[in-house]
């Protein structure tokens, strides 16, 4: 008898979570290389619902549950910074970086040398070269050129090549914060379609218009479910009222 309320509550919990995911997207509209998340729902059918005498679809109650967050892999807008060590990936692919916890992947290509001249991300993760070793920029080096394949060269000659990889399933990657992604999958080399642009940064791929519309939708649906709950409450109250009078 309480099923309508429970179903409504399952949706409300889901909408709450959806709002959290949306708020995170909105908060990261200026985070370079950020890829927006979307919460996917699925129906959870419960056969225990309803009366066992009734057969057919009415016997099952459809609860709402989250299935997963899907990362939007649409490319973000390219922003020119003019910094020679800012690189953006056009096409599928990720830079490989070495953190204390292991190799992580990122599309945020804003690199700078540390005190030893090793190329790092802003958070200290070392940028890996094609051979799996960090790339070192010698001190006093000024003209750094990065070509479309990710090869770094200076006036002193080639310095290495950025390790750019791709994965069969982008959705199997998990975000770990700090613009990094982790995965157990084996990285694969990128093909000719993936190019690198120097002096550019890939912005966040969150589309504010879409998110705002989505936000209004969540809010209104939430209010609508609230009304269902209220009506259900009213129905139950009336039922109790009438039934008690019959008795």
């Amino acid at each position, binding site marked *: 008898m309480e099923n309508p309320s429970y179903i409504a509550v399952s949706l*409300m919990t889901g909408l*709450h*979570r959806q*709002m*959290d995911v*949306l*708020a*995170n997207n*909105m*908060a*990261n*509209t*200026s*985070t*370079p290389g950020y890829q927006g*998340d979307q*919460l*996917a729902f699925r129906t959870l059918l419960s056969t225990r619902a309803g009366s066992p005498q009734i057969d057919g679809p009415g016997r099952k109650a459809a609860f709402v549950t*989250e299935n*997963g*967050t*899907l990362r939007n892999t649409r490319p973000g807008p390219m922003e*020119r910074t*003019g*910094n020679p060590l800012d690189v953006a990936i056009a096409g599928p692919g990720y830079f490989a970086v070495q953190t204390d916890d292991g190799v992580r992947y990122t599309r*945020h290509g*804003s690199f*700078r040398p*540390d*005190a*030893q*001249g090793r190329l790092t991300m*802003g*958070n200290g993760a070392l940028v890996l070269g094609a051979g799996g070793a960090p790339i070192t920029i010698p*001190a*006093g080096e*000024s003209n750094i050129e990065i070509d479309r394949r990710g090869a770094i060269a200076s*006036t002193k000659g080639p310095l290495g090549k950025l390790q750019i990889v791709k994965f069969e*399933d982008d*959705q*199997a*990657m*998990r*975000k*770990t*914060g*700090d*613009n990094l992604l982790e995965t*157990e999958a084996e990285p694969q080399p990128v093909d000719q379609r993936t190019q690198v642009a120097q002096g550019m940064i890939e912005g966040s791929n969150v589309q*504010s218009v879409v*998110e705002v519309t989505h*936000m*209004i939708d*969540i*809010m209104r649906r*939430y209010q609508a479910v*609230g009304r269902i*709950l*209220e009506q259900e*409450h009213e129905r139950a109250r009336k039922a109790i009222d009438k039934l008690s009078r019959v008795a």
Partner: protein
Amino acid sequence: MRSLSIASTGMLAQQLNVETISNNIANMNTTAFKRQRAEFQDLLYQNQRRAGAASSDANTIVPAGIQIGLGVKAAAVYRITEQGNLTTTGNTLDVAMQGKGWFQVELPSGETAYSRAGSFQLSADGKIVTADGYTVKGGGTIPRDATDVTVNTSGEILVKQPAQTQVQRVGQFELAGFANDAGLEGLGDNLFKNTPASGDPVTGTAGRQGFGTVLQGFLETSNVNTVQEVTNLITAQRAYEMNSKVIQASDEMMGALNQLR
């Protein structure tokens, strides 16, 4: 409701963004100012359902887990050390660095600071000093009766005195370079200090070992691009507004919840 606090991290981030942009715009006419850029990173994620976890005993796995991010944080405000434009002033002691390298300035405390603002002047005893009166390393002493002061591309200071036919070399600017210019710490007054992130200074002379050249009668302008800054400002302001909308929407959802009987 997490969305409230998530949106507030977004607003804080955009506030920092606006602050950085306003500092850039305020310094659009500061000699040799290097523009800054706020860089953001996403915060931690909470895994409600882990991707790759087993979903049954038949070796099926969850293809995409549920990850809820907790917002955004400022990772760094870094300096873009792109060369600024050169503007001619015609002043004998205005020197611009073209390329890599910093002038070394002796602070009153005895420490060395680094600067690219080459609007130098003479002190009472003939020393080459910055606008604040701090001595520039390698500047030497210019004799009182010197008639002609020339600074060549290698940073040598040459003077001519009335009684002599030959020019005399009184000093040569000693430059410093760093592995990571962006890691320098700004002290204000166009001065910078080295940090562990910038690495130790490597000294040298202009035009050699990767150092740039010195140009007399020129100053390096600020590398702020106003058009870019204004567009960035608009984006930051709108992003701030949108995050406040998320707070509003979350508030309305909580309001709807409170109205339930």
